[in-house]
């Protein structure tokens, strides 16, 4: 039995006591930065921003949930907290019953992530980047020898470019390699943080198709954070809106529209917040730097 399997309870039969894939309770995060202007005037200058404000939700195993939000709404902060890359200032978050702070090693075995920036060592090739990353998850060269070419083929990455430096690849190609890196370790929870932002329409569709394929063929729970309303509606079973750190709701898209009496999620966002979804104020720009 692998360590991942040991960390995730088996689901041979329906068990009501089974922990949810993701359980977030009253999760809060506040960032503090020095403010030089304020310092000059008052001697001690600090700016604080609430990135997440008592966020609560659960996601069941196998579910795909989208969290919508503008830039600076706290989406990336949420993903980083669930990835054990940030420490919360309040509340708790659990992955399959494992606390992200107290049991971070167990959580790390279960989770992987694709972020808006396909971060790689740019001089290294796709195959090299995947190879060393897999070792961090305990995969030997014998295990990755066939798996890396197979997974790159699965995401539609051309085999003749596997040994080319990442810096020579388009953003769409790099994002496919990022997806391959995340899937290579067989995560049971996949955190997708704006995986299609900045991609050309064709690459965007290819990545979205691949996410659909993961939903059907992979035993993964997916949390998709995006500011693309159509993408959220098309890919997720439930949609939540994160607004300035607060989760307004998390329901099937049709129920949200029905509740607010609107025909689109964009209108529902307006009805819930009184603001246009695409409209961002100075405060949102400022929040983006923090969150």
């Amino acid at each position, binding site marked *: 039995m692998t*360590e991942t399997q*040991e960390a995730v309870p088996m689901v041979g039969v329906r068990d009501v006591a089974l922990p949810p894939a993701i359980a977030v309770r009253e999760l809060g995060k506040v*960032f*503090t930065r020095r403010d030089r202007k304020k310092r000059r005037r008052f001697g001690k200058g600090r700016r604080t921003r609430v990135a997440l404000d008592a966020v609560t939700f659960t996601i069941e195993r196998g579910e795909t949930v989208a969290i919508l939000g503008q830039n600076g709404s706290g989406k*990336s*902060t949420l993903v*980083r907290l669930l*990835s*054990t*890359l*940030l*420490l919360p200032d309040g509340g708790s978050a659990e992955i399959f019953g494992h606390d992200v702070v107290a049991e971070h*090693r167990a959580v*790390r*075995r279960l*989770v*992987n*992530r694709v*972020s808006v*920036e396909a*971060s*790689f*060592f*740019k*001089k*290294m090739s796709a195959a*090299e980047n995947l*190879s*060393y*990353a*897999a*070792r*961090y*998850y*305990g*995969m*030997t060269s014998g295990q990755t020898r066939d798996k890396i070419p197979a997974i790159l083929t699965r995401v539609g990455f051309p085999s003749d470019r596997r040994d080319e*430096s990442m810096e020579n690849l388009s953003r769409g190609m790099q994002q496919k390699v990022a997806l391959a*890196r995340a899937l290579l370790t067989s995560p049971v929870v996949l955190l997708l943080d704006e995986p299609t932002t900045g991609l050309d329409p064709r690459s965007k569709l290819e990545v979205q198709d691949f996410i659909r394929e993961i939903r059907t063929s992979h035993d993964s729970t997916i949390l998709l954070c995006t500011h693309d309303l159509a993408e959220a509606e098309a890919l997720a079973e439930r949609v939540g809106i994160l607004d300035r750190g607060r989760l307004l709701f998390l329901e099937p898209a049709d129920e949200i529209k029905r509740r607010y009496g609107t025909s689109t999620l964009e209108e529902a966002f307006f009805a819930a917040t009184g603001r246009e979804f695409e409209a961002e104020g100075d405060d949102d720009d400022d929040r983006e*730097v*923090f969150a």
Partner: protein
Amino acid sequence: MRTTFGTMRAELVGAGGVVERNAYLTKRYIWWDLAWFAWTVANTLTIVFIAKGIEASGGQLDVNATMTTLLIGAVVWAYLGILFMFLMETVAWERWEGTIEYTFMAPLSRAMHLAGQGAFAIIYGLVRAAFLFVVCAFVFFDLSMPNADFFAAFVVLVVSSISFIGIGMMMSVLPLISPEKGTQLGFVAQGTLLVVSGVYYPVEVLPQWMQWIATVSPATYALDGIREAIIEGQGLTAMWDELWPLMIIGVVSIPLGLWIFSRGEQYAKKHGKLKRSG
């Protein structure tokens, strides 16, 4: 039992992954490394030529022994620079490329992560130090070392590396706290460590307070041991006076380095310093 074995195996594979990654990067940047090696040779020559300069200006000294003494100091300086650079890059380079979050969210313990980084730094540093020594000693200066025990010198350098890695771990936390200037502070630590350790002169010429610091610096024992092995031809059995302090400093510095790094990591996770733009 099986789980423990599996975890240990996964940790070793993970540490191997760090070595593998550094090997790929070294391969990709090999021409830059060669250019940097040429700079290191030039820098070492400027120091070793000082002995010739003193002789030319009428100074009375054993030129061969003085040049060898200076060369050993310069090679240890360069070696320490490599070790610290690799360990500082644990954070700095990864932050620049944006991969740091993926590394820090992997289920690899920080101890094995840093051990992998340290292991590659030692292997790479030893190869470079050996080349640097050979090029300067025998290609440029034709230095005479009839009694040299290179094996003993090698052992002293390897044992001292454990302490250096511990100190490097403490330094590598600096880019987490200050992404812009943290790496530069590592060079300050390198210089400070060597200046009190008799890098180009005997420790006895230093002020008393510096000599006290020298007693806890691993570089003091490394430089003494290597000079005794190469210049005086002393074997490993005569090195015990240098080896035991190095082992004790290593036993203390590695856990201390890990603890300081973990505190820095907690700080970075608290304040969101791991992300590239933060």
